[in-house]
């Protein structure tokens, strides 16, 4: 399974990643970073499409794609 990592101290809680995720597996976590912004969390099967990272204005997301997952990403 592919996965994403949030660099939580970069996050500004804008939720554009939540809106962009085609699998709908991102959500606000209820936790806050040192800047005072609510950070996001992921729950579910990530396809590694990197839509969230492309839309993140603060480059707070890194995407790791599993070799077994084929297809749907560029």
């Amino acid at each position, binding site marked *: 399974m*592919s*996965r994403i*990592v949030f*660099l*939580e*101290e*970069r996050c*500004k*809680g*804008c*939720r*554009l990643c*939540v*809106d*962009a995720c085609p699998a709908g597996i991102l959500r606000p976590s209820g936790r806050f970073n040192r*800047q005072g*912004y609510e950070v996001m969390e992921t729950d579910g099967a990530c396809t*590694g499409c*990197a*839509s969230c*990272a*492309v*839309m*993140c*204005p*603060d*480059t707070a*997301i*890194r*995407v*790791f*794609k*599993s*070799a*077994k997952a084929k297809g749907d*990403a*560029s």
Partner: protein
Amino acid sequence: MSRTDKCLRPQNDEKLVFDVNSVLNERVTHYCPGCHHGIAHRLVSEVLHELGVADKTILVASVGCAAFTYDYFNVDSVEAPHGRACAVATGVRRARPDTVVFTYQGDGDMAAIGIGESLHAANRGEKITAVFINNTVYGMTGGQMAPTTLLGQKTTTSKQGRSLSNEGGPIRLAEIMAQLQGVAYSARYALDSVKHVREAKKAVRGAFDAQIAGLGFSFVELLSGCPTNWNLDPVAANKRIANDMIPVFPLGVFKDVADE
């Protein structure tokens, strides 16, 4: 080693498919949550990284929210007076013809106070690239009306909404640039969706390709969101770009002499 450090390394069968490059500084930006400047910065940095020209690139920063652009790129930079980035870039490029020079300007900077300098630099065919961020307001100073403000849009200086008879209509700079003989490349794309962001990157690449090929002035306009001054949340601001801005500012490449 913290938990985050460990998970930032690819595990057994994994590949890192999204990472930032060395041209983009790691510093956290001063922009508001949901501001598209961050996406535009990433696109420009990726193009400079792909072209391998970052070490001979000179950025001319403008005035506005993008005034601190020089903090976010690992390239040499000059700060220009308000609106004069294209004039400063003209001097930089003529003095150092071996470099790649680009300006990064907002609509208040390039389309208002600096429209004279910008159009004349374009008309002279200066071999520079202008990245133009169009978010329909003056962002840094508190959401005043810009030349690109949409008709009917309420800002702090157009309380009743912009009207055609009183304030005129929004300036479509990409189309104006495409009319000028010295311009080699003019395009407009948006940063509101994954598809549009990927298209926008191709346009930024096209603009830098035109400069490096020595074809003339290259211009790329990026429709961006300003959630703070639009009084919208970032997701609603993206919808406004799609529903309100793109019909007024059509997307596409308006001129590309490399293709002709």
